[in-house]
């Protein structure tokens, strides 16, 4: 290999491979997140969800993708054709570009920028152009309203979400995604425990940023049909869809990196061993989980109604066993490989947990109205995030300059911030009522 590739190019090979992997896997991953979403939704709503295409609907995403690709590509007569073509591409390009600085594991990162977080935020907010342009170019009232809502919403909530992230940045002292994770490893604590309010603000802000319920006003189905996507169909529509899910993974990845310890294993100081072997219990957990899923698939295999479904189920089971084997093999590989493989597992597990919170919220809450959304953003989240930044900053000063116990300093400032949050919430109650009566007159 080294003969054929000149050494000057060598450092660029791995990032290109990573990039190809991400671009290839992401649409599939997005499809399966949709399946997961539908299954979780079904579970919460006392139904089964997709069951027909493949065992337990496991092939549904592929069927959906094929359907979307084969659909007629309709462009409205009065649409601005160029913009109509370009808009979804802008959205999806920006969403994919943001992956460049996302650390999926200690080594699995395309580029470790020293301003990684800033880069991700900047690029993913450029994706709004795709939405606004698409809404404008469609030349439809629903699309236009959706696009305008989207623009206003993203501007307000990006501020709040960004301020929420600042608290983690203060604690890490770096904008490089890798160093932020490293800081959490060094300090021995995930930043969600130190700055829970920052995490909360970011959680709410990120739901709004990705247009998910209860902040899905730009595509509010019952009001604007499909918002900015109303006039899109087929492949172009699926590009928007892909961008939306890619953005969800991005915000989940940011939250994971900044607040949930990135690729770090939970409980780093927990060293119990598995059945007397030299393998730590928590290190063995990933392969045990896959082993369990694989065996469960094999148990379900005979129950599938059709021969082909039996085969698919068995194949899924085999895949899980292979993953379990790979996870187990990594345990005995050199530490860098082991950290790489298991880091990737823990990172994706946290991303999925974060996304599960998204889904849970989506199926529980009704949708906000536009003015309420704005009020929540500007009058509650942004002030709260600002106070939280001051609080976290104070805690750092207290421990570094005054030598307070770090946990004590954090507790004190957290209590103060929660106090402010309660006050803000109660203050927001009063004007809200006044505004409503003023509107009613």
């Amino acid at each position, binding site marked *: 290999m080294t003969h054929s590739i000149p050494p000057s190019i060598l450092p660029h090979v791995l990032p290109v491979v990573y990039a190809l992997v991400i671009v290839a896997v992401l649409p599939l991953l997005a499809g399966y997140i949709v399946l997961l979403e539908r299954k979780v939704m079904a579970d919460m709503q006392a139904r089964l969800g997709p069951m027909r295409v493949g065992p337990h609907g496991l092939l549904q995403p592929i069927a959906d993708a094929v359907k979307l690709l084969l659909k007629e590509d309709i462009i409205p007569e009065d649409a601005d054709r160029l913009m109509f073509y370009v808009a979804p591409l802008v959205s999806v390009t920006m969403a994919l570009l943001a992956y460049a600085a996302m650390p999926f594991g200690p080594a699995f990162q395309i580029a470790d920028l020293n301003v990684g977080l800033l880069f991700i935020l900047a690029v993913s907010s450029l994706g709004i152009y795709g939405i606004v342009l698409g809404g404008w170019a469609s030349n439809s009232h629903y699309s236009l309203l959706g696009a305008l809502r989207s623009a206003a919403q993203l501007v307000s909530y990006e501020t709040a979400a960004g301020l929420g992230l600042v608290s983690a940045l203060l604690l890490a002292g770096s904008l490089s995604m890798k160093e932020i994770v490293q800081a959490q490893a060094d300090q021995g604590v995930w930043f969600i425990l130190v700055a829970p309010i920052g995490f909360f603000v970011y959680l709410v802000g990120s739901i709004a940023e990705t247009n998910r319920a209860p902040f899905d006003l730009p595509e509010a*189905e019952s009001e604007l049909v499909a918002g900015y996507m109303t006039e899109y169909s087929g492949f172009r529509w699926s590009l928007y869809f892909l961008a939306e899910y890619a953005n969800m993974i991005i915000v989940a990845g940011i939250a994971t990196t900044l607040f949930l310890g990135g690729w770090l294993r939970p409980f780093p100081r927990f060293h119990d061993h598995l059945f007397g072997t030299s393998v730590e219990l928590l290190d063995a957990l990933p392969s045990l989980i896959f082993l369990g899923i694989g065996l469960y698939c094999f148990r379900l295999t005979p129950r599938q109604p059709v021969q082909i479904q039996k085969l698919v189920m068995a194949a899924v089971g085999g895949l899980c066993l292979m993953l379990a084997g790979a996870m187990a093999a990594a345990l005995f590989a050199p530490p860098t490989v082991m950290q790489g493989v298991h880091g990737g597992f823990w990172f994706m597990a946290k991303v999925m947990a974060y996304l599960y919170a998204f889904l849970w919220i989506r*199926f529980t809450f009704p*949708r906000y*109205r536009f*003015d309420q959304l704005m009020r929540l953003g500007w009058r509650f989240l942004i002030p709260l995030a600002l106070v939280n930044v001051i609080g976290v900053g104070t805690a750092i000063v207290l421990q570094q300059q005054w030598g307070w116990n770090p946990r004590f300093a954090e507790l004190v400032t957290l209590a103060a911030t929660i106090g402010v949050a309660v006050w803000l919430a109660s203050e927001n109650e009063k004007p809200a009522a006044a505004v409503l*009566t003023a*509107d009613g007159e």
Partner: protein
Amino acid sequence: MTDAHTNGSSDVTTTVLGADEIILNMGPQHPSTHGVLRVKLKLDGERVVDSECIIGYLHRGVEKIAEHRSYTQFAPYVDRMDYVAAVSNGLGYCEAVEKLLNAEAPPRARVVRTILTELQRIASHLLWLGTHALDIGALTPVFYCFREREEILKIFEKYCGARLTTHAFRIGGLQYETYDGFEEEVKRFCQDFAQKIDEYETLLTENRIWVGRTKGVGILSAADAIALGVTGPVLRASGVKWDLRKAMPYAAYDQYEFEIPTRQTGDTYDRYLVRMEEMRQSRRICLQAVENIPIGPIMAKVGKVLKPPRGEVYHSIEAPKGELGYYIVSDGTTQPYRVRVRPPSFINLQAFDKMARGSLVADVVAIIGTIDIVLGEVDR
């Protein structure tokens, strides 16, 4: 931005860039107009300046059809007006014709009618709750509501073979006896249902977003409600205690104890609470009624061919959506000379403009949902 269309004067700028209103046609194909309602909204930004409901997309000429059918033949047609509350429609029609014939259904038939109609009210309100919550963006309650509604539809199916357009009653009483285990099934449903309503309420009643989306939205004062002829839960949420089951009892309602829930503000939240409480009261009526269904015949002697004397009659019942009235003119033949239906949905829909003016687009769907219209009934 301003340079795009201007040619000098600043007045032109404002007119070209347009602080004008835009016209938004919601429907007839729209996810939350509950059928083929078309609402023409004049919007200033997202605020509704003016609104107009355009109806008739589902007009089937039900009233005209009546003039060419015998009284018995027309009975199934009424089920297709408010097709989510077919039993109530049937009750209103059958009682109206009975009044015309000077006949009265036997006590057993009246009690069974009451039970089925109250179950239908619960089913109709469940459908309303599910879709209303869905319109406001809560995706989950609709499935819970359908789960319980399914139990009611199963009872209907066992009783008369149909789930939706039931044609459950006949002029003069009932065609079918109740099936074995009818009482137990109704009782079991009612007993289980109490905690189900509480379950819906835990999802919605104190949910901040739900309260924010419904409180103060689409306020209709009592005076306006009366002036517009609004009836049913919409009227009662505005503070007018008017329910035909109490005011002019029909079927067997005079035998049972129940409250008429009312609220004062007349906003969407109040209408929600009124309907939730109505479901509880319907459950109460059903429980009382199944305890003691009188034994006896189920049909009055009305003859095979119905030939009411010349004359006219107006009879109305409290359907789930409001006052459902039938005005029937008989010319002494086997076919009605004229049947005029007073559909609650149609008349309640008149209040839409009053409620929607000055609200936001998002409120419009909440208001359409809260009026609880069925287009089959609006357009007939």
